[in-house]
């Protein structure tokens, strides 16, 4: 029984409502910059839309889902009521107020700076304050996760932390540390300029601070999906989890290695030395390790399911899998997108190869495939799994859920594969229109049209998602089955002390951040005449 039922439901509802609005904007963007539409007459409208789409999809949706899922897991996995329910509501309201503040400012065209801020462009202070409130609201969640885990440990000394909760708290600590970068950037550098206290801004330093957040935030988005992989998927398809320890190793590796690698977003930035670029690029390669471990463990668990169902031989187990179950389909689709997007990511993170795709549509294709594809699909699955617990509805129609998964998968492939292709052909990202009548671009027109169609398939799929969730309560259930997590294949296996806590890994995360960021930050902060005049956006 979920005591924090309404709290979790509020988080998921607002997350998906905002998601649908941002999805409409995304589809509109795809349409206006494709050959299907006339050039957008006011490019500022396009950038306004991109800012809103990015702000919702990058800050609001994943933060709310991570928080909602975190609260649910705290109760379901620790089997005790959430401590600090009022604080949790306070965090939720902060997030809501922040989102509304940012949304109104963006809607008025006072902050068309894109969600990555891009100083020296500077928008209205209300936009940044809105984002700050979203982040501060999420810090309350971080604190509550720590408090709840601590209380549980005190009551259960020496017990193994359930894997779902372990991943959840790893994500919370990761977010706490990674959000410090953007917090410093906004509070120390951008807000003073935005409020007119200074006329110049150290744009190079601001970009380094943002890179501190920019890559690790991706793993904060990813962790809820990985929790679903480890703690939901095997149970849903009737298999044990192949290795509980492997899951813990993956989560702590994310904690250590996702933070000190953000400078791979600054390969083209002259203010950062090549030594740091190299070290960050090489450490980015290290984050593939927890992903490979996860893919291995989840595939091994799935194989167990196939063999338990009578599958034989090298590949016979694949046919024997429960393909009628939505979760089976979802994890397969998610892995396909994770695989393709991951391989593309290896190109982005390589210092030299990146030159060929830097700031092209390739990059947009990459992060949509990984985040909007592989990760957000698992957000949907988390909501579908939790919905009967949250609303008391009967289990959702597998037919509709599968239709939604298929349409999301197909839409995402149709959207992103053409993007990758035109990116290789050199099409820049962040452009409001392209002159397809030019012989140089004409051959790309049909490819861009295809990706726009992908955008509309995704919009339809998003509407289906919200419809499934919104109408679920029409079919009430008299008894809601208690929620269970995956059980490890070897429940008696010993969990090392190191993998039952976070102290060591948090210390390594902070230590590695100091090694990889202290010098570039100190050097840029002490550099004289490093500031440039701000470019106010939407001030007249």
């Amino acid at each position, binding site marked *: 029984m979920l005591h924090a039922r309404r709290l979790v439901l509020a988080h998921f509802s607002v997350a998906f409502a905002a998601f649908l609005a941002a999805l409409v904007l995304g589809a509109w963007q795809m349409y206006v910059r494709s050959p299907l539409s006339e050039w957008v007459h006011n490019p500022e409208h396009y950038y306004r839309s991109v800012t809103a789409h990015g702000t919702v999809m990058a800050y609001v949706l994943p933060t709310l889902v991570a928080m909602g899922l975190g609260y649910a897991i705290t109760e379901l996995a620790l089997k005790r009521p959430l401590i600090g329910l009022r604080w949790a509501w306070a965090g939720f309201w902060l997030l809501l107020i922040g989102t509304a503040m940012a949304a109104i400012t963006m809607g008025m065209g006072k902050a068309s700076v894109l969600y990555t801020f891009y100083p020296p462009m500077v928008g209205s202070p209300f936009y940044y304050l809105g984002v700050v409130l979203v982040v501060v609201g999420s810090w309350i969640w971080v604190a509550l996760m720590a408090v709840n885990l601590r209380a549980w440990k005190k009551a259960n000394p*020496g017990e193994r932390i359930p894997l779902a909760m372990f991943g959840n708290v790893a994500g919370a600590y990761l977010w706490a540390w990674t959000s410090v970068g953007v917090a410093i950037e906004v509070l120390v550098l951008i807000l003073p300029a935005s409020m007119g206290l200074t006329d110049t801004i150290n744009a190079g330093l601001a970009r380094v601070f943002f890179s501190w957040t920019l890559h690790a935030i991706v793993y904060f988005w990813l962790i809820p999906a990985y929790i679903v992989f480890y703690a939901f998927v095997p149970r849903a398809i009737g298999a044990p989890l192949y290795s509980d320890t492997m899951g813990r190793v993956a989560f702590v590796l994310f904690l250590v290695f996702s933070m000190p690698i953000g400078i791979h977003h600054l390969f083209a930035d002259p203010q950062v030395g090549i*030594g740091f670029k190299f070290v960050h690029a090489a450490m980015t390669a290290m984050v593939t390790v927890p992903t490979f471990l996860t893919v291995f463990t989840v595939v091994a668990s799935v194989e167990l399911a196939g063999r338990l169902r009578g599958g034989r031989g090298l590949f016979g187990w694949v046919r024997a899998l429960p393909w009628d179950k939505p979760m089976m389909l979802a994890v397969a689709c998610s892995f396909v997108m994770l695989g393709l997007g991951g391989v593309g990511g290896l190109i982005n993170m390589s210092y030299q190869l990146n030159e060929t795709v830097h700031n092209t549509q390739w990059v947009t294709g990459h992060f949509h495939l990984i985040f909007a594809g592989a990760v957000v699909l698992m957000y949907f699955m988390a909501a579908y799994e939790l919905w009967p617990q949250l609303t008391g509805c009967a289990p959702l129609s597998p037919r509709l859920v599968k239709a939604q998964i298929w349409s999301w998968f197909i839409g995402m492939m149709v959207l992103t594969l053409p993007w990758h292709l035109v990116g290789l052909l050199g099409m820049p990202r962040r*452009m409001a229109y392209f002159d397809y009548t030019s012989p140089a671009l004409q051959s790309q027109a049909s490819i861009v049209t295809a990706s726009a169609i992908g955008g509309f398939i995704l919009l339809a799929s998003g509407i289906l998602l919200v419809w499934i969730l919104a109408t679920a309560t029409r079919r009430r259930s008299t008894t809601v089955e208690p929620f269970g997590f995956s059980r490890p294949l070897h429940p008696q296996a010993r969990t090392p*002390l190191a993998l039952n806590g976070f102290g060591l890994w948090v210390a390594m995360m902070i230590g590695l951040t100091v090694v990889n960021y202290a010098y570039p930050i100190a050097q840029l902060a002490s550099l004289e005449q490093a500031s440039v005049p701000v*470019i106010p956006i939407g001030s007249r």
Partner: protein
Amino acid sequence: MREQGLYSWRNPWFRWSVGLLVAVTVVLLLLGFVVVPSVHPDFTAQGLWAGICRAAGVPAEWSGPPAAVERAPWTTGVVLERSMARAGSAESAGHGGTLASTSCTMCHGAQGVSASNAPNLAGQYPEVVIKQLRDFRSGARASPIMQAMAKIFSDRDVAALASYYAGLPRPRREPTSDGAPVPALVHVGAPLRNIAPCVSCHGGVDHKLGTPWLDGMPKDYLVEQLRAFRSGARGNDAEAQMRNMARGLTDAEIEAISAFYAGTAGAPHAQ
């Protein structure tokens, strides 16, 4: 489950994880700061330490002290500050009005709207007037009449003139809102020729600091200025933004843009 002392070298998890992390970090630092730079002679020409400093991004002279090269003249000495865009006091505007009545009205019109081919000043952004007057005064922008006029104004006079003209009513409305056919260059530019749309700086979509209000400007004045930017005869745009935009324009395009902003392209407009 109980395994005493996580933070001890006797704990294999602690030993291996800390040891491996330190080893990996040290190897990567050596690769990034010593081995990789050594491949490129620029980095190591002044020894190992200089190479490490360069890899770390320490600002340094890369090719010894520069030969004595005559520095090209600044295109403008004016640094645009946001404070320039704020309207001055009523007193300042009054002082500006007095100055304007004796020095400016002959060419720029009694109400700041020119009947000759001098630019309109009514409703012009204050920082634009400040920048141009200071550029005339320093010689960054050439004009026999204006250079001589600007020399007699102090900084206080310049600010006063700017706030006076900023307060006068503008001759015409937004360029994109009056239904006249808008040339593509004005509202979308020419992306493949790297020409940004006029409205992204001159108002309509966005207005950038120091960028003048163009609506209702005399056509001949606009044509002359665009040609001057194109040839480089005028170069007081600090980032060469106007020279870069104008360089790719044909004579016909300059005519069309100027006619549009002058208001003579579509229906005749009232001033």
